[in-house]
């Protein structure tokens, strides 16, 4: 590689769009991902991604922008999940086997039919693995606005979400409508998954949602810092992924860039693995009697 950044990187319109949309997606996913992990709803995030795949494929089949497909399917799925309680552990096995399998099967049908109609195989790839370099400029404001709304909703609910994650009963006793908060949060999660689906594909959106958050949880102790680190980690992975994908145009096979999603997912994984290099955050000393109970050198000295 002759340059850190290949020539023409920042003068390319699609690249600038990708960097902008990528930033919105990374920050939204990073912040919402922290709450997803805190609430133990990674599974819900994954389910939404599967169902969003169906929505994106359906949108491709009928010739609508895929983001709307992701979004509508995601929000409908979120409402259904809240209704039948998929996020509860007991309902998970059945839901995974039956509903999510069916959703992906339906996506396969839609993509097949859509490919027959338009005779392009590219669409199947963009639904499943993202399309950040081919975002039409008129979609960009919609994506930014969606991300901003989702972030704002979560910011307004932040304290209530934290209290509920400490103890739902505690929140209920203080007058919080825990169920309503859960529904609104799930809707914000659906928006976030849809955005990530646009960037790195519906199938991989969970990586951007959970990966940076999981990394941040290893590195920080306070919720606010976790959100900041998660957003920055997601942003780094996404931007470096975009740069890498642009560079890869000059890699073998020459003249064909590698998928952005590949770079982003690898970087997310690398970040998570790197976080293990940092020694475990040490717990401050315990209360005096617990220290005294230890058979340390103090006893030997006496």
């Amino acid at each position, binding site marked *: 590689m002759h340059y850190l950044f290949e020539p023409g990187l920042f003068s390319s319109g699609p690249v600038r769009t990708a960097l902008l949309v990528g930033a919105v997606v990374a920050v939204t996913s990073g912040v919402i991902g*922290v709450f997803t992990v*805190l609430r*133990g709803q990674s599974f819900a995030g994954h389910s939404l991604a599967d169902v969003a795949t169906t929505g994106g494929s359906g949108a491709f089949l009928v010739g609508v922008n895929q983001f709307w497909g992701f979004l509508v399917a995601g929000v409908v799925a979120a409402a259904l999940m809240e209704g039948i309680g998929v996020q509860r552990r007991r309902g998970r096995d059945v839901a995974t086997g039956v509903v999510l399998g069916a959703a992906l099967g339906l996506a396969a049908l839609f993509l097949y039919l859509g490919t027959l109609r338009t005779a392009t195989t590219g669409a199947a790839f963009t639904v499943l693995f993202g399309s950040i370099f081919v975002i039409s400029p008129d979609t960009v404001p919609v994506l930014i606005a969606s991300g901003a709304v989702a972030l704002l909703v979560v*910011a*307004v*609910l*932040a*304290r*209530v979400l*934290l*209290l509920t*994650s*400490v*103890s739902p*009963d*505690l*929140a*209920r*006793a*203080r*007058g*919080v409508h825990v169920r309503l908060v859960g529904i609104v949060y799930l809707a914000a999660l659906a928006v976030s998954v849809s955005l990530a689906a646009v960037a790195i594909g519906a199938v991989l959106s969970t990586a951007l949602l959970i990966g940076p958050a999981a990394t*941040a*949880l*290893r590195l*920080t*102790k*306070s*919720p606010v*810092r*976790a959100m900041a680190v998660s957003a920055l980690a997601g942003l780094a992975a996404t931007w470096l992924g975009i740069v890498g994908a642009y560079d890869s145009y000059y890699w073998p096979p020459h003249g064909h860039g590698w998928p952005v999603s590949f770079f982003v997912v690898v970087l997310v994984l690398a970040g998570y693995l790197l976080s293990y290099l940092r020694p475990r*955050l040490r*717990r*401050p*000393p*315990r*209360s005096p*009697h*617990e220290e005294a109970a230890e058979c340390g050198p103090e006893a030997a000295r006496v």
Partner: protein
Amino acid sequence: MITPQSSPPAAAPHAPRGDLLTLDGIGVRLGGRQVLCDVSFSLAKGEFTGIIGPNGAGKTTLLRVILGLIEPSGGRVLVDGTPLHNKNKSAIGYVPQKLVIDPDMPLRARDVVSLGLDGHKLGFAFPSRQRRELVLEALAGVGALAYADARVGELSGGEQQRVLIAHALISRPKLLLLDEPLANLDLRSEQEIVAVLGKLAREHEISVLLSAHDMNPLLGVMDKVVYVANGHAAAGPADEVVTSEGLTELYGHTVDVVRLHGRVLVVAGE
């Protein structure tokens, strides 16, 4: 030191000095089954009361009725003389049975206590010096300052109890409800938690109402017992309520109460 009721009692001489909490003929049906029948008792300011009874007797249900989480099928709950509504909910501090927090969760003890101030509200909470000091004061009040920066999920059961008590106290409630705060604690933590609670009742005049399946750790600090068994409850001083005759009537079968070296043993009879 936290002083949840810093104003001296003389500040409101004209106010009627009624009971802080009154349960009047409470009945609860859950899933078509009568769980509690005609439970009545009251709690005065600064009084320490234990809801005692075997597992499954309805202790948690009773606490949830007081918190307004379960609608009773009959009777009423009065807090400070008025039925429970969103306004006087802040008069009650609540410590739930146990936390289900992963050790990896980025929530420090100080974060949990801070949520006690306004965790139920929408919007942002900007950090301020005043908030920080209130949180540290609350943690110090229950002897939990040493682990203010530790993740709550990593704390031991007794340490989590202290953090939750600080969380409940930071909003300066008049009544503290605790659901089985002594469950799964080692003997030492148990004694320390009881001492913290006893001090709150005596020195700060907070009424403490806690549930426990064993009354012995509480004998030194408890003013009153609400003994729950078989869907019914008997309330009064431990010496009067926990007797062979009283519990036999409550359980509906023979029960022997044995007092041994200052400890109370409840034994099922023939």
